[in-house]
């Protein structure tokens, strides 16, 4: 996935790549990388967990402003069901 992201970035489009395996990200980093400690096949979260998925996506988009170096990595602090997910669409969430 890092290879495709690099190609797209090389065409002038900023990219961010989500990952559940930080080790794989380190081997072939995309220009911007967001590691989530979730399960394989569920990088956005659980099936039907709309707020969780929306929050992770919003935070991944936030990496466009946070990562300033090629190959930079940020890790989201979420821990599956143990975390609280604030809906970016919720009034008062700080983004709407």
């Amino acid at each position, binding site marked *: *996935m890092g290879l495709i992201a690099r190609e797209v970035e090389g*065409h002038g489009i900023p990219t961010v790549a989500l*990952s559940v*395996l930080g*080790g794989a990200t380190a081997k072939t980093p995309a*220009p911007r990388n967001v590691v989530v400690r979730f399960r394989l096949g569920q990088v956005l979260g659980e099936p039907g967990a709309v707020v969780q998925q929306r929050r992770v996506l919003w935070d991944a988009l936030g990496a466009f402003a946070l990562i300033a170096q*090629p190959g930079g990595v940020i890790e989201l602090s979420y821990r599956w069901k143990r975390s609280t997910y604030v809906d970016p669409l919720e009034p008062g969430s700080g983004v709407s």
Partner: protein
Amino acid sequence: MSLRRAWHRLLSSWYTRAHWWATLYARWGLVPVGGAVVPWAAPRVPFHHGRIALVTAAGVHPRSAPPFDMENPRGDASFREIRGDVAASQLMITHDYYDHAAADLDVNTVFPLERLRELAPLGVRVAPRHFGFMGHVLGAERERLTRETAPEVARRLVADGVTHAVFTPG
């Protein structure tokens, strides 16, 4: 289904659950690919004023499109276009190298197109086209990816006026 495909599905089911094994494999078993120089394009607009595309390596494609080739041991470097207004029910996954049972229930777990559309009140615009790859590519297929299919997707994203692209794995 061939014996080879059945074996890969069994294996992927195991290491999807045994996350520790996948973590160790990623750390010690994978080799770096691509050059040491990582390209960089500064965003021209904030993402919440941008036109955003999704690109996934999770094997997502429209039900109406041909499935990815699961018989080639080197994988399949081709891609499938996914319309920005497609219904999630019209998408499916062909990928034997991770257990996509959860994504079969809700494709947004790997390809959050519905979630992206929901961000419209915050200013986010959805690109007209998104792209699905099957993330297992080796040898000649990896060459085809870097020489042909990835550049072609990049050109289509440029043609669509995409300002930001989000990549998701399986």
